[in-house]
């Protein structure tokens, strides 16, 4: 028997205040408005004043609407029935399937004990040389794709999802354009991956509070699947929309903004989501790939900046290619010594030369004479971009390594590459 409160004291943005007793911090309530029912979450307690964040937004709420406390925090149904289904941020079906109510689990649970973590050890092959060779993706990694707006980040995400060897995909969409949502759904369906996918989708026109729930709901479900032994890949797009939703709500609640209007706890909020990525000993794992669009292509913007400090590297998408500079997979050294002897050295050597190529390119554009060395670099750079960086290249790691050596051999003499002599003896292609 739960009490119903029918006097709402204040409505500010998406937050309403009622006088009530017995409410707990983080609990859910149901509010009945003339536009239908909505969930709301307790976000502040001050004596008997209870502030609630209404999922469907404050618009249209009347001071006389009824508020009923449910006595439990936000929950989501968890079972194998989630496979192939599509939901919104509060867990209601978006497809025409039935509402799921069995086996409810809490969201936003405690963090994984660091002492129980293990060192990640499995490479995830994608067939993209800029990832496999230069910035290897590793199981249990959390990695964002930094991208300017207009870049094909969702296409890249979808391609990685299709080619990666995992048991489950959970797609969390935040502020997605409706078209993009349909793109994901159709691509995964055509690729035959929809049946191992669960989607939690918030589109740009949905209430902003639901956007906040998407990562928590997605990760809570992922965690349960991982504990059952499944390798789960969580795709989150776009985390900048998530951060903007937090900003919007923080500002309407009159919190002191810290940097460009974002709340001071932006780092902690993002971290508590990304840190859910884990490889559970003797069980499954969660790998997180998120998209972070950079307003104005500015990597120092608070969202990409804070994200970069949290995640284990980033893929930097620019002009439709993964940039070698700025892109980094921090976990690659856990796996790239087990692939082939030359992997690490070739990776470093080729990038150093590509950096020199960029310098020569700059000199050329300023109209300076090109030395022989510059000319060699220009030749190298063009081949590197065409055969390594182009996203359409789809080739296994070993082939990419072999090709790397032949590019070097066709552009330089062996001592110009700065690679260790022992490797050159072993891998330098013989004169043809």
């Amino acid at each position, binding site marked *: 028997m739960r009490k119903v409160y029918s006097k709402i004291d204040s409505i500010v943005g998406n937050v309403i205040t009622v006088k009530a007793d*017995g*409410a*707990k*911090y*983080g609990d859910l309530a149901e509010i009945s408005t003339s536009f239908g029912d909505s969930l709301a979450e307790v976000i*502040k*307690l*001050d*004596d*008997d004043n209870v502030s609630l964040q209404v999922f469907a937004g404050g618009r249209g709420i009347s001071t006389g609407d009824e508020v009923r406390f449910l006595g439990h*925090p936000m929950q989501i149904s968890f079972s194998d029935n989630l496979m192939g289904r599509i939901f919104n941020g509060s867990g209601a079906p978006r497809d025409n399937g039935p509402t799921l109510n069995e086996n409810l689990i809490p969201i936003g*649970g*405690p*963090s*994984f*004990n*660091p*002492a129980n*973590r*293990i*060192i990640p050890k499995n490479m995830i092959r994608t067939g993209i040389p800029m990832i496999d060779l230069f910035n290897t993706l590793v199981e249990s990694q959390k990695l964002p794709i930094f991208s300017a707006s207009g870049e094909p980040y969702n296409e890249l995400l979808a391609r990685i999802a299709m080619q990666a060897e995992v048991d489950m995909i959970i797609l969390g969409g935040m502020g997605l354009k409706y078209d993009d949502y349909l793109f994901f759904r159709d691509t995964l369906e055509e690729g035959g991956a929809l049946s191992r996918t669960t989607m939690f989708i918030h589109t740009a026109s949905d209430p902003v509070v639901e956007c906040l729930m998407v990562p928590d709901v997605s990760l809570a479900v992922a965690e349960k699947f991982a*504990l059952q032994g499944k390798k789960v890949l969580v795709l989150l797009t776009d985390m900048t929309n998530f951060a903007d939703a937090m900003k919007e709500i923080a500002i309407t609640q009159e*919190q*002191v*903004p*810290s*940097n460009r209007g974002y709340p*001071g*706890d932006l780092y*902690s909020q993002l*971290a*508590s989501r990304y*840190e859910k990525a884990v490889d559970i000993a003797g069980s499954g794992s969660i790998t997180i790939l998120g998209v972070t669009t950079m307003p104005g292509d500015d*990597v*120092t*913007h*608070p969202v990409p*900046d804070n994200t*970069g*400090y*949290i995640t*284990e590297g*980033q893929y930097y998408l620019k002009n439709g290619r993964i940039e070698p500079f*700025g892109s980094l997979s*921090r976990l690659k*050294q856990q796996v790239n*010594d087990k692939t082939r002897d030359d992997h690490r050295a070739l990776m*470093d050597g080729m990038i*150093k030369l590509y*950096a020199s190529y960029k310098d020569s390119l*700059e*000199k050329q554009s300023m109209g*300076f*004479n090109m*030395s022989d060395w510059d000319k060699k670099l220009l030749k190298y750079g063009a081949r590197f971009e065409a055969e390594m960086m182009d996203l359409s290249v789809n080739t296994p790691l070993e082939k990419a390594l072999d090709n790397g050596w032949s590019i070097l051999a066709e552009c330089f003499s062996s*001592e*110009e590459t*700065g690679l*260790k*002599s022992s490797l050159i003896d072993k891998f330098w292609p013989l004169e043809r």
Partner: protein
Amino acid sequence: MKSSGKVVGVNGNMVTVEVTGTVQLNEVGYVLTEGKRLKSEIIRVNGDRVQMQVFEITKGIGIGDPVEFSTELLAVELGPGLLGQVYDGLQNPLPELAKEAGHFLERGFYLDPLSKEKEWEFTPTVSVGDSVAQADVIGSVPEGPFTHQILVPFSLLGSYTVKSIQPKGSYKISDTVAEVEDAKGNVFPLKMSFEWPVKKAVTCYAERLKPVDPMVTQVRLIDTFLPVAKGGTYCIPGPFGAGKTVLQQITSKFADVDIVIVAACGERAGEVVETLKEFPELLDPKTGRSLMERTIIICNTSSMPVASREASVYTAVTLAEYYRQMGLDVLLLADSTSRWAQAMREMSGRLEEIPGEEAFPAYLESTIAGFYERAGLVKLKDGRKGSVTIGGTVSPAGGNFEEPVTQATLKVVGAFHGLSRERSDARKYPAIHPIDSWSKYSGIINPDQTEYAYNILFRANEIESMMKVVGEEGTSLADFIQFQKGELLDAAYFQQNSFDPVDAAVSPERQKYVFNLMMEVLTAVLDLSSKDEARGWFNQLRQLILDYNGSEWQSEGFVKLEGEIKSFVADKKIRVDENAAALMAKN
């Protein structure tokens, strides 16, 4: 008399409590919710209402939930058994917690920091009737490679007479090993462990000394050019991905100190795991024992509650100060102090304090200064010396060093190792910017020589920027050679291959030796007739030195390569540069 209260407000991780009885600022209390006791700390007192930060997730707390106060400040337990432990920010042992509570950090679980069951071989060093004071040694137990001294608790002020002392034997830390009596006849039982509030610096030493001896890190660029002293402080600011944590990890392995305390404060859990799994396998070259036996890890990673993140750096520095009291050299690596500052900012926002720059609280600078000032080389009352060295990383927003945390830190540290995005993008390790960074300490090499080398680098840098404007053809051959020398110094001396077992850590002897070889090249006037010849020559030389850096110290290959390098250089060397002749003659 312990006070009690009840919750009247919840806002994020801050609760407002109505109290009956007296309370103290920074007193620890427990909120009783859903059958759990959630540890909290009083951070503001206002009439009969106090504001507390909760060190746990606050979900489920309701109005009217009871609160118990402890009359104690937030404290850590000090005693034998700290080494090798992995604690959270409140000194909960995480591996034990995992055994009790499973994979996840369930809230409200607190375990004893030190095992109450383990027995230690105690040897007394005082006799009945001796006079003792705070931090005096009353006995010792062996702990790993060290002799862990049992000290009179720091909280016992004044002088005491030993009334009884236990004979040599096995004791648990909770056993009374001695009793002391003050002038008024009050008797205090002493155990092998005691508590000390983390936010109070331990000052039980005779005097603080100026840090002079270099703390060798086996990173060439640091030891040769940007040294850190034992008892000193340094900071490593850098944008993300520039290698702050890698540098800290390498330092934690190779630093020439007795004990290393790693405070992973608000950073990635995965990085701690690397240390956690790797250290027990690695051997400390000094003692020949597992590296873990000289290490304590304080691990409050980014997804763990933010209030205990704030506490974690204090927990770490208090443990460091404790071991310093035993005459040991301790290195505290805090990664990252920015996350700690952000934790302060979050709490300040909840308290609705007037924000300072970038919404950081106004007391940011004094708090940072207070933390770094807990480092230092000290002379203990019995004449021995001990030191706490603090190295903190800073994660400036947008990689911009003008932000408040970096600036506040730069004011109080003795060395600045600024990491540059440009260098890390070019895969240069360590990515410390050799020109922007500075150190006020003296290193392992004659400063005149390092200055000469530095000047070459400065000059090479100038020439490089000039070349960008006038092009290579507009640069004189002499300048071009100077530029190549700078590039060589950078590629073959500043940079190290962190994956190469030999090059990853370079002993001071080898650094001195190789630096002399570098000076041979840097001070040489060379017979190179064209830029292409110069480029080719330097490329070959660089290759030779890189191979040389990767060869085992004094091995056959090392000697052979050295011979090759020397004859390679001699071929083109006309004479020694006049300005450097006197400098080189000193050797």
